């Protein structure tokens, strides 16, 4: 028998339809696991498969959808028997294949859910290992509604078997997965991971799928699978029925086939009748597999970014080179600072964010993974993984949710040998630097040659040149007057090789005054020469001016709408600045909760006022005023919090002007939501208020074990610990933490708070203070430090 991926190239093939509907007609009770029948009623499962093969299906899905180690202790047996039943039915038939069917775990992955990525990979891997030797012809990963879980399943399938891997996802009425990915994002990621066919299943019905089949036709180079439901379930005369019948269903399937679907089948509510009708109506339609799409694309968990004529901005701010504050944040593990940089660059209009956390004194791989996971919770932009270390690239590419841009490979043997296999395995756009053992060639021709070498080596690994984005390197013009000209000429030559280009723009102006002038002019030149991506500073107005003006001038901005929006928003900022500074004092800005004004006004004050005077004379009195109003119920929590936000913004500015030795970490508090509790809103409110009052806060987050809290207090010699809990079930964890702290150091004082606590509870568990609200906790801390 032909391999399934060979057969797909020759003719249209068909999946079977739904399992539930048929098995329920055979007596399966609603809500019962059909997979158990693999052991108790195998003859019924075999008969189900036979019905589908008889109807014209080429591939039957094994009855193993919900099976995994977490749900069934006998998962191996269920998988083995499930495959056996399908194989019995396939025996002796022509073009009849068995797909080992693997559904989702039912759990959401980190950072939003509890399941760790590698645990998800392992859960799927156990399944795949159980299935690998049982004779299935392919693995079907189906009904996945999360891109990250899909990636975990594909990696598990690829690492534990040699079978072809087909993947179908569930798109909702908005044309996206439950966790946000659109078809283009899924295609980018799945093609990068080298699956053999991809598409959609389940969902609302064939009519809905018709709306997005075009996206698959336009972007997928792989066969496209379409396995819809029979419409929506409704109750008629007390019976559940699906809205679309076999005849209507198969009419839709004709349209789907004409719209670009390659492999057809059904999902919930469909029966052998639906498949037979589909086979009859589509078998004679002209057939072709999707064409190769020459698109350079990376993706996040929501969308794809296409690297083409419209320039791409890659934010450079998460890179410690020349940024002392980021270095400090990396050393202390201050994720908030890094995330803030990510969010600000996203809001500034970047398309991709570069992430480089390379510092000699930290574990770069661990920090990179931590940053990527945290960044992917707060920004939906694709990330560019930037490291010189192979293990850092691998760790990050594996756990990245989507198809990353990888920065970088170069023309040295060692680099190509290390990096290319990673792109081959995990997928990714690849920045290729034109440097090799001989250094950076001085001429444009030399740099193009290095690019050619990398392209050719990559193709040996099956990496098409569309994945490669060449960076011909911009060297400082102040030390080499030829530099800019050679780089621009290199772009011209490299474009002729049929690959895209990228440049780290800012380097060109190093060592010169008014760097923005040189950098932005060079950027304009490079864009005119055909540069696709720029790694740049999105907070540079000069750079953004060039970007928007270039697009408007080059037919990339229809009606100049983006330019107009941009131009009017920069105008607005200037007006706000002058207005704010005229009318407000720092004190009133904080009381009113005006964050931007507070920061601006502090900057103005810094020139002629001592930093500590700003804190004690303006910030603290303003906070006290609003704090008092809150305590007297004249102001509400949202207002208090806005003031705290404004005070924090002012503090940031003050801190920047304080020499490191003067910044006061003696007034500190360790904060944590106790083990078992994931509610942290109360703890976060306390944190921001404490910070706005100038306390140093060691925030351990939520669900924190007692030992970690103790260790943190000891490490920083901090005698004040704040604990929060929202659920009654976690109060014992709070008691345990207090006990441990008291045993460790009787001088440590604890303040506790949270919805379930009251004075009585606090006394009972031995807390030193019950913080009835955030202000009360601040007052206690002030008392504790006599300030």
């Amino acid at each position, binding site marked *: 028998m032909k391999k399934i991926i060979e057969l797909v190239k020759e003719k249209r093939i068909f999946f079977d339809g*739904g*399992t*539930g*509907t048929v098995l*329920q007609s055979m007596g399966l*009770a*609603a*809500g019962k696991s*059909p997979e158990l029948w693999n052991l108790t009623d195998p003859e019924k499962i075999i008969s189900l498969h036979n019905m589908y093969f008889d109807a014209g299906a080429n591939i039957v899905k094994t009855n193993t*959808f*919900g099976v995994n180690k977490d749900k069934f202790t006998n998962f191996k047996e269920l998988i083995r028997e499930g495959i056996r039943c399908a194989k019995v039915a396939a025996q002796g038939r022509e073009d009849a294949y068995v797909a080992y069917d693997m559904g*989702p775990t*039912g*759990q*959401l992955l980190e*950072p*939003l*859910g*509890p399941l760790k990525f590698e645990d998800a990979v392992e859960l799927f891997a156990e399944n795949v290992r159980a299935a690998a030797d049982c004779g299935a012809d392919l693995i079907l990963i189906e*009904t996945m*509604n999360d891109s990250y879980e899909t990636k975990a399943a594909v990696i598990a399938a690829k690492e534990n078997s040699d079978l072809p891997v087909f993947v179908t996802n*569930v798109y909702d*009425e*908005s044309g996206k997965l*439950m*966790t*946000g990915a659109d078809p283009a994002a899924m295609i980018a990621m799945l093609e990068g991971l080298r699956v053999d066919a991809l598409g959609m299943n*389940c969902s609302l019905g064939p009519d809905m799928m018709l709306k997005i089949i075009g996206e698959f036709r336009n972007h997928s180079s792989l066969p496209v699978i379409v396995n819809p439901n029979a419409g*929506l*379930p*409704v*109750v008629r005369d007390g019976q*559940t029925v*699906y809205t679309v019948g076999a005849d209507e269903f198969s009419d839709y399937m004709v349209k789907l086939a004409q719209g670009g679907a390659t492999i057809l089948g059904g999902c*919930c*509510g469909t029966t052998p009748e639906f498949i037979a009708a589909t086979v009859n109506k589509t078998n004679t339609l002209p057939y072709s597999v999707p064409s190769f799409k020459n698109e350079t694309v990376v993706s996040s968990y929501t969308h794809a970014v296409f690297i083409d004529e419209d320039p791409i901005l890659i934010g450079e701010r998460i890179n410690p080179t020349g940024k002392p504050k980021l270095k400090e944040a990396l050393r202390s593990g201050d994720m*908030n600072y890094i*995330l*803030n940089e990510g*969010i600000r660059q996203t809001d500034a209009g970047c398309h991709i964010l570069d992430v480089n956390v390379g510092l000699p004194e930290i574990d770069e791989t661990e920090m990179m993974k931590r940053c990527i996971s945290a960044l992917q*919770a*707060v*920004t*939906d932009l694709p990330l560019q993984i930037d490291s010189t270390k192979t293990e850092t690239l691998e760790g990050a590419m594996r756990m990245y949710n989507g198809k990353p841009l990888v920065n970088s490979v170069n023309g040295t043997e060692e680099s190509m040998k290390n990096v290319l296999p990673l792109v081959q395995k995990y997928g990714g756009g690849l920045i290729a630097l034109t440097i090799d053992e001989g250094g950076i060639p001085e001429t444009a021709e030399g740099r193009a040659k290095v690019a050619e070498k990398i392209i050719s080596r990559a193709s040996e690994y099956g990496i098409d040149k569309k994945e490669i984005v060449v960076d011909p390197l911009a060297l400082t013009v102040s030390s080499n007057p030829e530099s800019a000209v050679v780089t621009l000429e290199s772009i011209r030559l490299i474009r002729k090789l049929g690959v895209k280009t990228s440049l780290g723009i800012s380097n060109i102006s190093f060592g010169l005054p008014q760097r923005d002038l040189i950098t932005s002019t060079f950027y304009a030149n490079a864009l005119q020469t055909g540069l696709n991506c720029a790694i740049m500073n999105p907070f540079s107005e000069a750079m953004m001016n060039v970007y928007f003006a270039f697009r408007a001038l080059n037919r990339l901005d229809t009606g100049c709408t983006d330019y107009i929006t941009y131009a009017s928003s920069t105008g607005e900022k200037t007006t706000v600045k002058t207005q704010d500074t005229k009318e407000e004092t720092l004190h009133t800005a904080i009381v009113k*909760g005006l964050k931007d004004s507070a920061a601006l006004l502090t900057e103005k004050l810094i020139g002629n006022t001592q930093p500590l005077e700003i804190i004690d004379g303006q910030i603290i009195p303003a906070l006290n005023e609003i704090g008092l109003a809150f305590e007297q119920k004249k102001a*509400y*929590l*949202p*207002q208090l*919090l*806005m003031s*705290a*936000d404004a005070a924090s913004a002012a503090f940031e500015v003050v801190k920047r002007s304080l020499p490191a030795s003067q910044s006061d970490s003696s007034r500190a508090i360790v904060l944590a939501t106790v083990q*078992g509790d*994931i509610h942290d*809103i109360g703890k*976060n*409110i306390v944190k921001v208020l404490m910070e706005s009052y100038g306390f140093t806060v060691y925030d351990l987050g939520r669900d924190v074990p007692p030992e970690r809290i103790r260790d943190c207090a000891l490490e920083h010699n901090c005698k004040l610990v704040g604990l929060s809990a929202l*659920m009654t*079930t976690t109060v014992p964890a709070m008691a345990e933490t207090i006990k441990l702290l008291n045993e460790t150091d009787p001088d440590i004082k604890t303040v506790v708070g949270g919805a379930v606590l009251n004075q009585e509870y606090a006394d009972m568990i031995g807390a030193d203070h019950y913080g009835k609200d955030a202000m009360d906790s601040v007052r206690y801390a002030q008392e504790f430090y006599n300030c």
Partner: protein
Amino acid sequence: MKSNDIMMITASGADIEVNRRELAARLGVVRNYSDDLIESCMKRLEKIIQYKCAYIRCNVDMSEENICDFRFMRVESRNLYRNLSGCSEAFVMAMTCGIAVDRELAKLKITSLAEYFVTDGIASAAIDSFADYAVKKMRGELKTPPRFSPGYGDFSLSFQVPLLERLNAHGLLGINLDSAYLMTPMKSITAVMGIKK
């Protein structure tokens, strides 16, 4: 594979009016209080929120004292038993505001605690308002006691497991449960509502 008797109700952010009384209670402000912060958070949330509800109508056997037997789950609970008294059928439901709300909250936690706190309060009030809307649709002309959720009284949170499983809540709503029976997306509700004979 999946049960095929599950019904869906969906709505966009704009479809559902957030109950202002509920919101005021959650934000700790007086009724009818509003300001720019609350209104701007409300507007932003409205754009990203996607309400989805999955429910079934099923029999519930109440013949044994303090036992409510839905077949797919057998609940021993005095409070639920009392709530369902006089019912032989019930709606079993799960609903959510969607994962985009969690993402927005994660982002706001970093950028502005004031917006985070307010948005969290609005989202909580919003899912409650949607629950009222969905329940009204299900109920139609039927007579029902108030909806009752796992976690109320002695109706154990652990019943979230069979309930969400039965409703294919992972597949249809993207609701996931952790080991402490807490749901993601955070702004999600599960409940049962009896149907009076």
